[in-house]
């Protein structure tokens, strides 16, 4: 049956219209958040009952942003979150990929059993181990520049180290590594490459997609951390952004400042995503098996 160009255009138009409407549903909360961050509370609350909530109309100013910075050390919280998240993501990619490399390519006794145990940890909710983990980290030693300390509470390390290795990231790497052509690994070994050289010269350059995926997932988990920092960090100087959100919920909630704060803490997430999206596409374009 011949395609009628007019019908094709109409169908294309309808399809894009539906897609745009669906996209709007997802983008509306963000639009509401950003627009509301510029409105005074009285107007923000009044606008919620109309489409004005999604439009930058009325009394628009940066007052909520100034208010947010007065109410909480926003820069410090963002810096803490970026630092903790960045360090955890980098260390996680290294440690988990090494573990996965061992599970995928090395032959050692108990490997399959241990991999099963690692994967089984996926079904354990963090909340169930939060208290035992708290008790553990509160007693662990640490050697710093000023000597030996007992207890990791109120530090960056307590927010980073327990989160470096996790079953999901290891599992992602294992699955990806197993799908790589075995001939590449065998050829490298035949030509005299050590396992370490295979890891960083052969496997990792081919692992762009899984690195990007694991990094995005880990970033989101770490940047959204709430319960763990809440119970292990009592000093403001180490608090991350999600715990900082609580600064804005007083008896009289300043909703405009809440929206301004949320907008500000969304910036690093969007930036990271946009940066990694490019890396993700580049990694797909530059990797592959040459025939």
């Amino acid at each position, binding site marked *: 049956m011949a395609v009628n160009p007019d019908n094709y255009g109409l169908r294309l138009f309808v399809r894009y219209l539906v897609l745009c409407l669906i996209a709007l549903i997802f983008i509306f909360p963000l639009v509401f958040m950003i627009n509301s961050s510029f409105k005074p509370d009285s107007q923000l609350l009044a606008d919620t009952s109309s489409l004005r909530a999604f439009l930058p109309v009325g009394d628009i100013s940066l007052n909520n942003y100034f208010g947010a910075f007065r109410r909480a050390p926003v820069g410090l919280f963002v810096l803490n979150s970026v630092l903790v998240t960045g360090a955890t993501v980098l260390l996680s990619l290294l440690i988990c990929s090494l573990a996965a490399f061992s599970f995928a390519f090395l032959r050692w006794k108990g490997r399959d059993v241990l991999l099963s145990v690692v994967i089984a940890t996926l079904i354990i909710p963090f909340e169930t181990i939060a208290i035992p983990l708290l*008790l553990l980290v509160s007693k662990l030693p640490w050697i710093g520049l000023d000597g030996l300390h007992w207890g990791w509470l109120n530090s960056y390390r307590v927010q980073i180290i327990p989160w470096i290795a996790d079953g999901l990231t290891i599992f992602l790497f294992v699955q990806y590594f197993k799908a790589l052509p075995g001939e590449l690994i065998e050829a490298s070994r035949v030509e005299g490459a050590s396992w370490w050289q295979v890891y960083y010269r052969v496997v990792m350059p081919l692992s762009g997609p899984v690195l990007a995926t694991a990094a995005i997932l880990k970033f989101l988990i770490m940047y959204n951390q709430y319960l763990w920092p809440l*119970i292990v960090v*009592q000093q403001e100087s180490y608090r991350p952004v999600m715990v900082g959100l609580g600064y804005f*919920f*007083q008896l009289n909630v300043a909703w405009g400042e809440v929206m301004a704060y949320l907008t500000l803490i969304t910036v690093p997430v969007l930036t990271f995503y946009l940066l990694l999206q490019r890396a993700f596409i580049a990694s797909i374009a530059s990797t592959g098996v040459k025939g």
Partner: protein
Amino acid sequence: MKLTKHLAGVVIASTCLCAPALAQTKLTMWYHGAGNEVESRILNQIISDFNTSQSDWTVTIESFPEKSYNDSVAAAALAGNLPDILDVDGPVMPNWAWAGYLQPLPIDESEFADFLPGAKGVWDGKLYSVGLWEAAVALFARQSTLDELGLRTPTLDKPWSREEFMAALDAAKASGKYEFALDLGMNDQAEWYSYAFSPFLQSFGGDIVDRSTYKTAEGALNGEAAQAFGKWWQSLFTGGYAPGTSEDPADQQTGFIGGKFAFQWNGNWRAVATMEAVDDVVFLPAPDFGAGNKIGAGSWQFGVSAKSKHPEGAAEFIKFAAQDKYLAAFSDGIGLIPPTPSAAQMTKNYKEGGPLAVFFDLSKAQALVRPVTPGYVVQAKVFTKALADIANGADVADTLDAAVDEIDADIESNGGYGHR
């Protein structure tokens, strides 16, 4: 040689000059008000004044967001990381004392003799905490509304009866001027329900738990009085007097001011903003449903951590902070009720003839502290769920019976929470 002597002299002089500072023992303090600029400013001023007023102690503060403060303290208690001075919400205090987070204040209770009862945290016969302010709720209304609807203005001596209150709601509803007659703040299902609504239950003659033993809720929460309360409570929603649990969160801030409601059940922390927006606002006492008119009592208070090695220093600070000038500063700053009559006279809102003086009287005359038991933290949640369910149409008797079972099971599983 001369240089050495000079150096030695400088070192000795420096040591002598620094001696008072070095002698100060450090006390740590946790506070729930992170993000509250005014509270933080006043509290920092008190700490600064205390630290310079004597040479024995120096207090450092760490502020936490209010919503997560209790969780942070519970976690720190587990990890053995509590500070010397703890800020504690009044109704939660017995739980913290029972759990071993707090120790009794090493201060004679007579030092706080003129404090409002709700500002003193007493558990098991011992004073554990003292508040620098008190909170109260009232029925917000416009004088013009009362006049238009032909309603008597209730007073502390002669509050509205149940019939008068319902007649007022009926009149407001019949006027057709309001979307709803009454705003209860139903969206806030945290501790607001037990703080704001359990006094209605108590005014009916019931309670969340049997206060004579604190070992059961049987009879208190599901007896005849409680059943009557439950049916009345449900009628507020089935009768269309008040919005239900899906009420717009913005209503407590804008609903009454914007004219959506004729009456609003709200706290004095909203009073200043409401006065600024509504010229003829009046704050009315709670209705009397038969067993006296009641409102909740007890706000944030200061106590000494059980782990503190320096309870005497922590007590010194609490006594210092409880001076009238600071109580008045907090009241002027955040609008809450100063806990002593002398401090009230120093404030702009609560002095005799002040626009909010009525709240001090309400607090003095009507206030009833929430159940003084470690189990309250659970009971409040159970009570909140029961009230939300009833508001949403659940069977009153079944819901209250289920709530009693849940509360009793919790009391039993905790060995009676230490009540003898």
